[in-house]
């Protein structure tokens, strides 16, 4: 006997998830065969940044935030960073995970080993966060070089993006367990696209009609964007902790739901 049998708890995250590391290793090994896709993921937010900066930025000019005029690119760059953290996490936890659930039956063979469903969920989410971390760092570098970053606090935005990733990856993975066909992936877009467009991403909250402001503030991306924007512009306040709390609560719910669903789905 080589493997040391150890008692493993089903929850809570992230304690007792040493075993999840094996799944991260697996994904890393697999990533070598699609590194082009991996690298290309970095360009999308950069294209958006450029389009916003030179294109729409020129149309908008300066934008009024709390009575202060700031260049549009400075306003929109944090939103692009938060959005790309969301998109990356969603892609990794929906399309990628769905492929493994349906097509390759990967999890069935993984669960025949000592790994438990919660550890599988944690492993996949950890992998999504690692990927996201790489993208966030690269994005921040590009934005800083382009002159869209105004404060060293921006470094903390990398951590915030990881939190955004955690919230969306855990929710995305839970949602994926309900999907039946690839076409259901379109319903993910139904949730993501409105958030991308209407989370105070492209214009400040007060540009929305008052009735809609509450709706905007309820979306998870709004809180992510608000955090990243405050950090990149160097405008700190205790209110930011509220955003952090919202994202943490959402993450906890997502992890709980994912673990439950995976257990239901695979351990029948």
């Amino acid at each position: 006997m080589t493997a040391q049998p150890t008692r493993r708890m089903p929850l809570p995250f992230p304690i007792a998830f040493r075993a999840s590391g094996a799944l991260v290793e697996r994904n890393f090994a697999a990533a070598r065969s699609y590194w082009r896709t991996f690298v290309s993921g970095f360009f999308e937010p950069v294209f958006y940044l450029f389009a916003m900066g030179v294109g729409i930025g020129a149309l908008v000019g300066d934008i009024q935030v709390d009575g202060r005029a700031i260049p549009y690119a400075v306003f929109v760059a944090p939103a692009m960073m938060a959005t790309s953290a969301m998109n990356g996490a969603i892609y990794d936890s929906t399309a990628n995970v769905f492929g493994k659930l349906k097509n390759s039956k990967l999890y069935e063979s993984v669960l025949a080993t000592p790994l438990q469903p919660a550890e599988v969920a944690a492993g996949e989410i950890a992998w999504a966060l690692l990927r996201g971390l790489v993208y966030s760092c690269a994005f921040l570098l590009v934005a800083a070089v382009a002159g869209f970053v105004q404060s060293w606090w921006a470094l903390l935005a990398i951590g915030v993006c990881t939190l955004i990733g955690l919230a969306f990856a855990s929710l995305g993975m839970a949602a994926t367990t309900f999907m039946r066909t690839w076409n259901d992936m379109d319903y993910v877009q139904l949730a993501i696209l409105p958030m991308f467009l209407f989370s105070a991403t492209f214009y400040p909250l007060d540009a929305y009609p008052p009735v809609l402001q509450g709706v905007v503030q309820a979306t998870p991306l709004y809180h992510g964007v608000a955090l990243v924007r405050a950090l990149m512009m160097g405008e700190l306040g205790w209110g930011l902790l509220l955003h952090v709390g919202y994202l943490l609560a959402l993450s906890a719910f997502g992890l709980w739901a994912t673990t439950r669903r995976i257990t239901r789905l695979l351990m029948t």
Partner: protein
Amino acid sequence: MALIEAAGLRKAFGDFVAVDGIDLQISAGESFGFLGPNGAGKTSTMRMIGCTSPVGGGTLRVLGMDPTTQAAQIKARLGVVPQQDALDEELTVAQNLAVFGRYFGISRAELYRKSGPLLQFAQLTEKAGAKVDTLSGGMKRRLTIARALINDPSILLLDEPTTGLDPQARHILWDRLFRLKREGVTLVLTIHYMDEAEQLCDRLVVMDHGRIVAHGSPRELIRTYASREVLEVRFDVPDHAQKAADVDGLADRVEVLADRLLLYTHDGDAALDALTDRGVHPQSTLVRRASLEDVFLRLTGRSLVE
């Protein structure tokens, strides 16, 4: 001591009862088979033993432990070969072994040491760097078996290991399984093909509709439930039932199938002579030894491969 012990084991999916109260004792070093048609409850039973499906009722002990509370410990000592290979298509052959070993918490150094002999065992040494989707069906199945051996399991669970393989690949696989058996690995298999059950299993149970309908060694089962020989006769008629009267009294028992009649007797040639004496001339005839297929037909009234 029994490695696997079940008493009144049950499993239901909604209203459908997949496993309906079975009792089992599987000992160390044994090669044990579950025989039955699709939907008999074999795979459900295997999945409960493999701790990937919660026990639905009754008791189950695997390696002396309870699958409900000690799943991870049990799984650490099992090797599982599922019906579909479920290999990691994105990885190479060698990576499949290494990555799988990491799930068991085996160190990289040890995996490095182990993968050579395992690849050799699976006859895949030259394919170590190849992507999995370039392998043939037989190679994939051998890799799945090698992968299941990465943790030196006490029990190897194989769910229909040869289904879908060509005859040559099946024979190679049988050879590999015999070697494992010789090395003392306990094999638990579900089997669809009778010839295979006779070759591979020391002991087996026949399952039907979630129940065990017979158990024993292949030889015992044949002796108990079939005769020594079988005479198969075919006529050029649309329905063989109308010919049943022609063979009446020639054998201990007659089974009417869609395309032929089976006459169970201790002496097939004698029965054939008697048939000819009656002036009955079938389109074709065959005398053969009774097999597990006949046991199954007798027990369930259905042929196994439908």
